[in-house]
C-alpha cells in the first residue's frame, strides 16, 4: 500500500534521516520508536508532505506522492498530532464535521450523525458542544483521533499520540487506538510507549543514527 524508498532529508549540513526504506501493507500497524530528536516526527510528516524530503520516493498505491494533488494525498493519509491541534474557535462537534462538510461534502445533518455516533463510542457525546479548551488532554486527543478517522483515510499517522498526556489520559487514548487496530485500520505510529507498541504493532522500527532498523520483539498480549 505504502512504499518508502530511500528517502533522505537534510537541514543545511545536518542530516535528519537518510536512506529510509520500508513498506506498509493494508491493515498493518507499523510503529517507529527511538530517542527524542531522532527525526521520527519529521519522517512521519514527510509521508503526508507536511514536510518535504530531499531524495528518494514515496509511493501510495504505486503512485508517487509528489505526483498527487496535495489535498488528495492528505485525505488519503491522515495525521494525528502530539498536541491534538483542535480548531479552537469550533466546538467538538464542529471540529469533527467541518472536514466532512467542506471537503467530503456531506450534508450538515449526515456529518453530525456520523460525528455523534463516534463520540458516543468513546463516551464523549456529552461534550459535543464544548470548546477544546474545556476538555482534558485525553479528551482532546480522542477528539483529534476521531476527527482524522471520520475522514476515512487509507492510512492514519499518529505522532506521539500520548506524549502530552498523564497516565490516566494515556489509558483513554491507547484504548481508542487499540479499537482502531481491531477495526483493521492501517496505522503508522511514532511513540515512546514501548509496551503498548509491542502489543499492537505488526512491525516495529527503531530510528538510530538517522536511519531506520526493524527490530525483532516478542508480541505481548493485546489490551
Amino acid at each position, binding site marked *: 500500500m505504502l512504499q518508502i524508498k530511500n528517502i533522505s532529508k537534510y537541514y543545511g549540513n545536518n542530516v535528519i534521516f537518510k536512506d529510509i526504506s520500508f513498506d506498509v501493507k493494508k491493515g498493518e500497524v507499523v510503529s517507529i520508536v527511538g530517542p527524542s530528536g531522532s527525526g521520527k516526527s519529521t519522517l512521519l510528516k514527510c509521508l*503526508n508532505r*507536511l514536510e518535504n524530503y530531499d531524495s528518494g520516493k514515496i509511493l501510495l498505491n504505486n503512485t508517487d506522492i509528489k505526483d498527487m494533488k496535495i*489535498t*488528495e494525498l*492528505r*485525505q488519503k493519509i*491522515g*495525521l494525528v*498530532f502530539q*498536541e491534538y*491541534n*483542535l*480548531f*479552537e*474557535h469550533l466546538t467538538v462537534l464542529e471540529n469533527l464535521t*467541518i*472536514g466532512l462538510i*467542506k*471537503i467530503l461534502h456531506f450534508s450538515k445533518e449526515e456529518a453530525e450523525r456520523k460525528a455523534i455516533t463516534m463520540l458516543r463510542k468513546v463516551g464523549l457525546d456529552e461534550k459535543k458542544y464544548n*470548546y477544546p479548551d474545556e476538555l482534558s488532554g485525553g479528551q482532546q486527543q480522542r477528539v*483529534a483521533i476521531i*476527527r*482524522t478517522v471520520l*475522514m476515512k483515510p487509507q492510512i492514519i499517522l499518529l505522532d506521539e499520540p500520548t506524549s502530552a498526556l498523564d497516565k490516566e489520559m494515556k489509558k483513554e487514548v491507547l484504548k481508542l487506538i487499540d479499537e482502531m487496530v481491531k477495526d483493521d485500520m492501517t496505522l503508522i505510529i511514532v511513540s515512546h510507549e514501548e509496551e503498548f507498541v509491542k502489543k499492537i504493532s505488526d512491525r516495529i522500527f527503531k530510528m538510530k543514527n538517522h536511519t531506520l532498523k526493524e527490530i525483532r520483539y516478542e508480541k505481548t498480549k493485546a489490551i
Partner: protein
Amino acid sequence: MIKNKVVKSFIFIVVIILIFVAFLMFHSTTDVKYYNSLDELNGEKIGIATGSTFDSIIKKKLKNVDLKYYDNAVDRISALRNSKIAAYVTDDAMANEEIKNNNDLAILNEPIGVENYAYAISPNNPELKEKVDKVLLDLKKDGTLDYLQKKWMGNNESEKKLENIKLSGKNGTINFGTLATSAPFSYLKDDKIVGYDIDLMLLICDKLDYSLNVNVLDWNGLLTAVNVGKVDMAGCGIIVTKEREESMLFSVPNYKGDVVAIVLKNSISNSNVVEDIKQNFVNTFVKEDRYKLFIKGTLTTLEISILSIIFGTILGVIVGIMRVSNKKIMKFISKIFISFMQGMPITVLLLIMYYLIFVKTPLSAIVVSIITFSIYLSAYVAEMIRGGYEAINKNQIQAAYSIGFTKYQTVKYIIFPQIISYIIPIYKGQVISTIKSTSIVGYIAIMDLTKIGDLIRSRTFDAFFSLIAVALIYLLICIVFQKLLEYIEKKVNKRKQVIE
C-alpha cells in the same frame, strides 16, 4: 416607561452634560472690569483674530499689550465675557454686527487704525487679477461698491439679500474661498452663504462672464488654498501684507474700514436667564430653519464616516495580508506604509492630501476626505490583523492541511474567523475613533456637523446650544455604531453569546 437600556443611558448622559455646562456657563466668579477708552487698554490682554494683521496696528497705538489669538468672533466674545481679555480688536463692519447681536458689548469711540481689504488671487493667474481689478475700479467709480456696503453694513436686515443675477459661466468658473463666519462679509443665512464679499463676487463674475463656486474654508486653509491654486480667489476681510504678496496676488482694495476695539458695556440691565436660554434655543435651531443645517451636517458626517470605515477595512485587510505574508517585499512595503500612517497626525495627513497630493485633481473635498480616512484606518486594521494572526496557534494550520484543506479553505474556515474574534473589540474602538476624527474635515471646506455648528455659532454668538447639539449628535452616532458592532461581535464570537 422607557425600557430600552440604550435610550436610558443616552438621556442620563444628556442631562448630566446639560446640568454641568449650564452650571459652568452661569456661574462666574471672576470680577469684571470695564474700560472706557483706549488708554485704559495699555498693558492689558487684547484679543485678535488668528492670522490677522491687526497686531502691528495695535502695537503702534497701545503699549505693553499681551495679544491673544482666537479663530472666530464667538471665541473672542466668550473670552471677553469671561474676563480673559480686556478687549478685542476687529474691523468696524464686523464690530457693528457683533454689538447688534450682543447687547453687553460696546465699541470704543476712538478707532485704532484704518485698513484696506482686498481679494487674494492665485499667483498663477495674473490675468484674472487684471480683470478683477478693472471691474472693481469700475464698480467703485459708478458707486456700486458704496451701494453694496450700505446694503450689507446697514441696519435694514430685509435688504440683505444677494443680487438676483444669473451667471453665464461662458468663461468658466471662479472657485472662491471664504470663511462664512464673518458677517457682514460672508456668513450663513437661510442655508446660503451671503454677505458683502459674496454679493460683490456675483457682480464681478457677471461682468467677466464667469460662474461662481463658493468654498467655505477655515482661516488656516484659506490663503493656502489660494497659494496652491485650490481656489482661484479668496475673500473675507483679507488684509494685504508684504509677506502675503510674496506668495499670491491681491486685487485693488474692495473695502476700507476702521479698526476698532470692543469691550464689555459698563451698564447693562439684568437679563432674564430663562428668556436668554429660550432665545438662544430659538436662534440656534428654529430661526432660518437652522435645525435643517444640523441634519445636513450629520448626513455629511455619516457619509464620510461610513464610506471611510468600509474602504478602510477592506484596504486594511489587504495590507494586513501583505504584512503577514512570507514574501519579503510585501512585508516591507506594508511595514513602511503602516509606520508612516501611524506616525502622521490625521489633520496633517488630510491637509497634505487636499493641498498637495490631490490639489490638481477634480476630486471633491468629500472624496479626498474619504480617501484620507480610509487609508488612515487601513493602517490600524492591518496591524490588528497582524496581531490577530500572531495570536493564533499555528499548529491549527498544520491540522487543517492534514485533514485536506487547501490554503484558501484554511484561511477562510480556520484563520480568518479566529482573527476576527480576536480583533473585533479593538476594531470597535478604532471605528468610533474614525467617526470622531471626521470632525476635522471643516479644514478642507466640507460642511460637516462640526463645521455647521461653527457656522451657526458665528451667527448666534452663543456657544451653548450649538456645541451641545453637535456633541450629542456625535454621541448618538457613536452609540449606534457601538451597538451595531457589539451585535456583529456576538454573531462572530459565539462563545461570547454563551457567556452572556
